[in-house]
């Protein structure tokens, strides 16, 4: 006999003396089989004349499962009776089957899991399957592997069984599949991406951390998800903890894999041998039946181990006839290959049956043609009928001469009249008697929804055309076709267009098939933003702060595509919205810290699985609505706003991703709908003042079509949007005015444009808008500028400045020296006024401000570069500078994303500062890219300018003391910075800095960072280095940018030059990050 199995494994299992438990979720939780499933649960549908439940039991029994819990929801009595009457409940089989009836409120597998948890029936690792499984996989082997893994790794909570199938496979659902990202060595599932057939998914996005942490990964789009999960005991409790997990794959697996709190891992078992598939829809019903007839499920084949206990004879051409001579085949009938004919069936003359399954006791009359038809028990097909690609329920009577086109489902007990003509994809069921309907309503409130659908169907049964379809004397009703009315409420997978891919059908590729369908729309952006947020979450928790590269890509992908379309889903998110509002209310009322509130929001977001934008909308809305409207007192109103924004504004950037442009847009749209429309300008100004948004962002927002309210139909709403936009216009005008009116402001502008993290600008801008109170009080707008600058400089001029100065002279051409000195003088001046602030910075434990020094110090280099590029190393500098300064959105966002971490940290550490004043320096400091904490950056930035990073950094470290310090005041800040930066850090930073120049010379066409979405590729060995490198470089870029900005700032009048530079920046900043991989090593060597 074929050595199909080895019993040794089984012995191993029993040795452990643990009862292997299995849970069958015997409910489909969807309606794909309607109307076949009106009146009985899906798991009792026959596949090859054995119920699905039998197949599932057999699959489990094959694996040596000893205890099975069957969770039933709909028609529990039928399920229980079926189990009781089946061979499975015989004690001699040694199988303990317990049926569990869950409440009607169980709408998802997640609910069922929670129910299981509450019942506490699970005592050890168990097998979780759906009640529609057909499998001959050695699940016990999977269990063994799982347990072995658990012995070493307690966090491996689940093992999913997947089967390689190739991308195109009849058994692989087109409507519902998934991309698995696996670690090639451990088979750990690193990422799970659900794929729907409609809208077609063209891209998969893979968090970059995965590439960083795993030297070799497999990204697989050829796996059938067998729906067999070996779960640990804690899995049900995880469902309990996360009340919103619905689907096991999309919610649970995705949730666990993306969670930054759980730290659990999920593995895959790639089954090379054996067969397993779910009968999840009518199409897979078709393909699984065919697989069974083609013996893929051996030994679970009709002639060998038929789960229903029938015995069939296998004859040439994979035909199966029931044994015992009960099948009556006419001499002239034709039974083609891949057919199964149940006991007691009569097939009359000239009937032609191809690739079909006929139930027991059916009658097929003369001249009938059946192609790819599944006929359940006791059906009667009238003479001359033609049926193809359809499923015919039990006890159906099809009248003579009927035609049933492909894709039809005929419910149980339907009688079709003579010459009925069912079109493609019709669904018909039996019309219920009045009394019966009432009765069923009473006894089964669960079927309510179905009933409503039925009634709807019943309601439209009068027309003549219907009679033409179902024939005279029929008791059938025709179900509505096309999308349902409540389509919007449905899961993406369950929507009509996607379901079309799941219907029994002519195989795709067949010329007769009208699939694949065309799809006009684009992929939903919500996905992108959602993913982005997930990534950035992960990031924030990544201990090595280097990991931020991913968010860049994510953000850059999502930004351009962001639009209002997500508003459509508003209804779906209303619940979430309510939750957020509550949570925020609590936070406001009880005065939670911003961080706590942020954590809460994050949890909520993940729980409800909503895109980041929704969270942002909710947060912005809550904040705005919290602002008290003070009538008639502009100043008081302003105070009110700045108080609120000052306290809660930072929350906006902490919800998991930073996207100021979106923030503005969200704010705009909210205001347009809200009574606080007039406050839009002031709020925006307050946000600006608090550096939650930058001038750049405002401009970017302003330039977007959405901001102008284009494409909005609702007139009043559109008008309001427009008004907001006009406010923005005014603000920008003011920005521009400032530029032109003042010498210095010109540079500021350019700074601001190019650089999102510019703080000093904030002061000016606010003043300009007329909303900033403090700054205006203190100084004129020009004064503000300077003070702003100074602040930033103050905090850093210490070491970096010095170095810059020193470094510059050291270069052969020494072009930098002059500008540097001028700048220094400026700094000195300004410092006087800003001493306080600089001190604040210094005091702040983390010295976030440390990075700033670059700003001031960088100046010389930049100025030098354009004027007279120093020999080799310096040559890179200009390029770099320009790149970093780029106004191009992607790059700026990169920085921000990387900075968001830093912000959070910074804010933690400097509560005092923020409280004290919104003084630009404080904010500025907080903006620094955290990771290689700010200290590093200052050096990096210098490095970039000087282009001799190593030298410099070494210089810095070594010579800092020796170097002459130009500014007297510097001493204080410097001291602090120095303490904060032990020499060790310096060296590490040096490395990262070094990457930059190396990167610049080789520009790359498809930079990772900018085009982040386009590189989901297999990353092998170098992956880790690569991404790390990328991250570092990005951090560097960020710093560099800020420094450059400052530089420009101080280099008044050079704006023209800078603009030139801007041109190239976008790409180059991308290059940097992309290139860095190879550089990592080089740097080290250089350093030494």
């Amino acid at each position, binding site marked *: 006999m*074929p*050595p199909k199995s080895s019993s040794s494994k*089984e012995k191993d299992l029993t040795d452990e003396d643990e009862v292997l438990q299995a849970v069958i979720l015997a409910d489909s939780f969807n309606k794909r089989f309607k109307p076949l499933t009106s009146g009985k649960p899906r798991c009792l549908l026959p596949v090859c004349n054995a119920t699905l439940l039998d197949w599932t039991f057999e699959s489990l029994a094959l694996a040596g499962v000893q205890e099975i819990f069957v969770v039933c929801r709909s028609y529990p009595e039928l399920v229980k009776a079926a189990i009781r009457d089946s061979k499975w409940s015989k004690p001699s089989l040694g199988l303990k089957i317990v049926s569990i009836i869950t409440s009607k409120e169980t709408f998802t597998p997640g609910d069922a899991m929670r129910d299981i948890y509450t019942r506490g029936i699970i005592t050890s690792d168990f097998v979780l399957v759906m009640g529609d499984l057909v499998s001959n996989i050695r699940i016990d082997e999977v269990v063994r592997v799982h347990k072995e893994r658990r012995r070493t790794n307690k966090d491996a909570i689940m093992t999913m069984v997947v089967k390689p199938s190739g991308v195109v496979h009849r058994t692989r659902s087109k409507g519902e599949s998934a991309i698995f990202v696996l670690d090639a060595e451990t088979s750990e599932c690193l990422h799970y991406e659900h794929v729907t057939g409609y809208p077609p998914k063209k891209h998969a996005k893979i968090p970059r951390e995965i590439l960083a942490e795993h030297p070799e990964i497999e990204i697989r789009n050829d796996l059938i998800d067998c729906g067999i999960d070996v779960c640990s005991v804690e899995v049900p409790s995880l469902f309990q903890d996360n009340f919103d997990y619905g689907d096991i794959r999309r919610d649970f697996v995705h949730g666990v894999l993306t969670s930054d709190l759980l730290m659990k891992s999920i593995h895959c078992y790639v089954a090379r041998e054996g067969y397993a598939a779910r009968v999840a829809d009518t199409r897979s019903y078709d393909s699984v039946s065919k697989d069974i007839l083609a*013996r893929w499920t051996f*030994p679970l084949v009709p002639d060998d181990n038929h789960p229903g206990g029938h015995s069939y004879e296998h004859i040439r051409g994979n035909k199966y006839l029931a044994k015992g001579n009960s099948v009556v085949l006419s001499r002239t009938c034709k039974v083609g290959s891949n057919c199964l004919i149940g006991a007691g069936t009569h097939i009359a003359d000239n009937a032609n049956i191809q690739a079909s399954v006929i139930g027991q006791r059916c009658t097929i009359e003369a001249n009938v043609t059946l192609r790819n038809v599944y006929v359940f028990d006791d059906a009667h097909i009238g003479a001359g009928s033609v049926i193809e690609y359809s499923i015919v329920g039990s006890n159906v009577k099809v009248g003579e001469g009927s035609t049933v086109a492909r894709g039809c489902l005929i419910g149980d007990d339907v009688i079709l009249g003579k010459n009925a003509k069912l079109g493609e994809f019709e669904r018909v069921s039996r019309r219920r008697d009045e009394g019966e309907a009432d009765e069923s309503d009473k006894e089964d409130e669960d079927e309510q929804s179905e009933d409503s659908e039925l009634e709807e169907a019943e309601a439209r049964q009068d027309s003549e055309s219907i009679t033409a379809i179902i024939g005279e004397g029929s008791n059938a009703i025709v179900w509505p076709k096309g999308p349902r009315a409540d389509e919007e409420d449905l899961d993406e997978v369950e929507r009509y267009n996607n379901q079309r891919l799941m219907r029994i059908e002519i195989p795709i590729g067949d010329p007769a098939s009208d699939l694949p369908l065309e799809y006009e729309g684009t992929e939903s952006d919500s996905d992108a933003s959602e993913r982005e947020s997930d990534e950035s979450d992960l990031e924030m928790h990544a201990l090595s702060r280097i990991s931020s590269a991913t968010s860049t890509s994510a953000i850059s992908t999502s930004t351009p595509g962001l639009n209002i379309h997500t508003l459509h889903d508003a209804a779906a998110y209303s619940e979430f919205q309510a939750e957020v509002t509550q949570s925020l209310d609590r936070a406001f009322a009880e005065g939670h810290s911003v961080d706590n509130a942020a954590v809460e929001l994050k949890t909520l977001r993940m729980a409800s699985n909503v895109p980041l934008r929704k969270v942002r909308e909710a947060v912005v809305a809550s904040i705005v609505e919290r602002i008290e409207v003070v009538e008639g007192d502009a100043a008081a109103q302003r105070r009110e706003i700045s108080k609120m924004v000052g306290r809660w504004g930072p929350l906006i950037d902490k919800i998991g991703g930073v996207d100021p442009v979106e923030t503005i847009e969200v704010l705009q749209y909210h205001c347009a709908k809200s009574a606080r429309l007039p406050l839009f300008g002031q709020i925006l100004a307050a946000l600006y003042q608090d550096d939650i948004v930058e001038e750049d962002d405002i401009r970017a927002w302003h330039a977007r079509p959405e901001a102008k309210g284009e494409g909005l139909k609702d007139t009043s709403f559109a008008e309001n949007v427009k008004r907001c936009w006009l406010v923005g216009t005014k603000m920008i005008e003011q920005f521009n005015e400032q530029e032109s009116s003042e010498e210095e402001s010109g540079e500021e502008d350019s700074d601001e444009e190019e650089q999102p993290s510019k703080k000093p600008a904030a002061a000016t801008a606010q003043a300009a808008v007329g909303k900033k109170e403090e700054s205006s009080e203190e100084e004129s707008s020009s004064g503000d500028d300077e003070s702003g600058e100074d602040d930033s400089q103050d905090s850093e001029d210490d070491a970096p400045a010095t170095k810059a100065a020193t470094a510059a002279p050291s270069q052969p051409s020494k072009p930098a020296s002059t500008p540097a000195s001028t700048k220094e003088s400026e700094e000195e001046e300004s410092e006087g006024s800003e001493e306080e602030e600089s001190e604040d910075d210094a005091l702040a434990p983390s010295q976030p401000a440390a990075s700033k020094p670059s700003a001031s110090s960088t100046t010389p280099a930049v100025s030098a570069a354009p004027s007279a590029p120093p020999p080799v190393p310096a040559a890179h500098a200009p390029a770099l500078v320009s790149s970093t300064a780029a106004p191009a959105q992607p790059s700026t966002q990169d920085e921000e994303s990387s900075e968001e971490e830093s912000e959070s940290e910074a804010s933690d550490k400097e509560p005092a500062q923020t409280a004290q004043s919104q003084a630009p320096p404080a904010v500025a400091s907080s903006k620094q890219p955290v990771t290689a904490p700010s200290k590093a950056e200052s050096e990096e930035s210098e490095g970039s300018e000087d282009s001799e990073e190593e030298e410099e950094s070494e210089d810095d470290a070594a010579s800092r003391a020796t170097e002459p310090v130009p500014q007297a005041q510097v001493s204080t800040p410097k001291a602090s910075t120095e303490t904060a930066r032990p020499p060790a850090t310096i060296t590490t930073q040096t490395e990262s800095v070094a990457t930059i120049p190396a990167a610049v010379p080789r520009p790359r066409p498809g930079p990772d960072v900018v085009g982040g979405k386009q590189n989901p590729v297999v990353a092998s060995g170098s992956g880790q280095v690569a991404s790390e490198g990328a991250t570092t470089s990005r951090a560097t870029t960020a710093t560099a940018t800020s420094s450059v900005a400052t530089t420009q700032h101080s280099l008044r009048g050079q704006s023209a030059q800078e603009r030139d530079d801007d041109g190239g920046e976008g790409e180059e900043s991308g290059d940097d990050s992309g290139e860095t991989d190879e550089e990592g090593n080089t740097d080290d060597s250089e350093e030494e």
Partner: protein
Amino acid sequence: MSADLHGSQRAVETLVSKLRRRQVVGSREAALETVLVLRQVVSKARFSNIDQLISLIRSVGKRLVEAQPKEHSVGNTVRKLLHHIREEYNTAMTGNASSSKTVYSISNFVLQGQPRKQNVAPKSEATLTLKENDPDDPDSFARVLKPVLMEAIQDVLDELETVYDNISKNAKDHIHSDEIILTIGHSKTVETFLKVAAHHRSFTVIVAETGPSYNGHEMARALSSAGISSFLVPDSSIYAIMSRVNKVIIGAHAILANGGMFAITGSLLAANAARVHSTPVVVCAGQFKLTPLWNLYHDFGALDFADPSSVLGFEEGNLVDKVDVLNPYYDYVGPELVDVFITNDGDHPPSSVYRLIKETYDDDDHEL
């Protein structure tokens, strides 16, 4: 009683499902399991006359055979047991155990007359006082007979356990020095046979790969690790090589009454090639493979079609839908292609297999 019966019933059911699920694989393994289950059944059974016992065993046997009709050794073992039980019963009742044990051979079987009279050496002594249907003590019959029956069952078990050795004991008479032997598949019987022969002779074995299961690989490995010079060749070159082969030695899955047999896929190819070259085809098989059926080759399904995955990968999604793959596990090799069967009960030509079967089983048991 019910508890006992329950226990044996459960053992039967377990074996049934194992057979159905192909968790018990291989004819010897299946035969062994069957004997063990039957021993349990007999030891637990309560009966007051022989008919009850026979019908009980037959019903169990039927159940097992129906569970896996393609594992013929199950049915054979049941039949053999029934035969033994009848013998014991007859001996015990009549008390005239003929102790004349003659060895069957082709030369003398005609003289032997009815094989039925030729008894296996009875375990029971004539002194047993057997009383059927004793109304006073219904269990007495069982009590007296059971020990004898258990011994008989033990005999069957022993025979199964020593089958390889018994087949191999004449190995050196079949293989001569420097011969080139061709074999196919991985039959334990053949493997032992060759290994034993290798103690006395030096010869060369050519092993065909035996796709799609590629059992030949294991066979070649096993043989060469025993120091036999072995070649592994693709199935396609069997015919080309045949001219140099002195003997084809293959195993069997089941030997049918007509002298034909089921053997692993590829055997038919080898046997036909051998026939063309008039190379002798020697089949090594235990007696338990003798199956009192002869027309199975009409039965398409008897070839035991396995899943197509070893022929066409499941991941060939495009093809899976369009290609029907037949992957029979066995070939039917007709009697005209086989020269001799080497069993643990002597060597026999295909034409005398029916005789062996008649000796081994009772006619009443052909249909369980």
